[in-house]
């Protein structure tokens, strides 16, 4: 079973973050604007995160307003900002 990241539970329980995207397909311009990055940077970051986790492009993920990306079970897959910097 995949390990769970303590950081994810910390921010989720604190209620300080919110979901900004949880739909199939590529996120919209509004999502990239909410994160303060360009859309191609967000797409590229998501692509790298999914590839690095063994996921396919069609696999659904959730993006949080702190840049965290989680799977359908709430497990942290990575962070958008880590892939941009």
């Amino acid at each position, binding site marked *: 079973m995949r390990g769970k990241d303590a950081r994810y539970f910390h921010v989720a329980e604190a209620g300080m973050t919110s979901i900004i995207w949880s739909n199939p397909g590529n996120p919209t311009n509004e999502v990239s604007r909410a994160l303060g990055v360009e859309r191609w940077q967000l797409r590229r970051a998501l692509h790298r995160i999914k*590839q*690095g986790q*063994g996921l396919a492009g069609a696999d659904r993920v959730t993006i949080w307003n702190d840049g965290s990306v989680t799977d359908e079970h709430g497990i942290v897959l990575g*962070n958008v900002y*880590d892939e941009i910097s």
Partner: protein
Amino acid sequence: MNTVLSLATSTTRSRKIAPQKVFATLRFSGDRLDPDRISDILRVQPTKSYRKGERYFAGPRAGHLAGHTGIWLLATDDFVASADLNRHLGYLTSLIFRGAADHNKDRLAGLRELMARDGITAHVSCFWHGEPGEQPPSILPEATVKLRDLPADIETDFDTD
């Protein structure tokens, strides 16, 4: 300079080329995957690799995560500075098919044997982000044939602003 951060057997390679809007990745995955075996055959260090269950550093914000399966991944934007997707795919095929014919067969046979023995699958993904109205790139049949011969499935992630 290219630096590699190693945590146990996991590897995360820092980028030496600025982020690009075009790149491809070659990924091997499987629960019994030993990343070192793939590196030994291809004679290249991956962008990211870890074994199933291994904790690896995913970045300053994500912290340490645990691999739910074994991964060996190489992203071409660490090596190829080009807006031409086929150059990126050419780099990937060259890893497998480069050198003398005999060595090609050894490398290919080695990968196939490892994949069959350990239940490893190969996957190639192509990323492209274009300007509004721009036509997405076409993948040369030569690259498709070679990669499917591995066998690797090929996925495209093309979109525009």
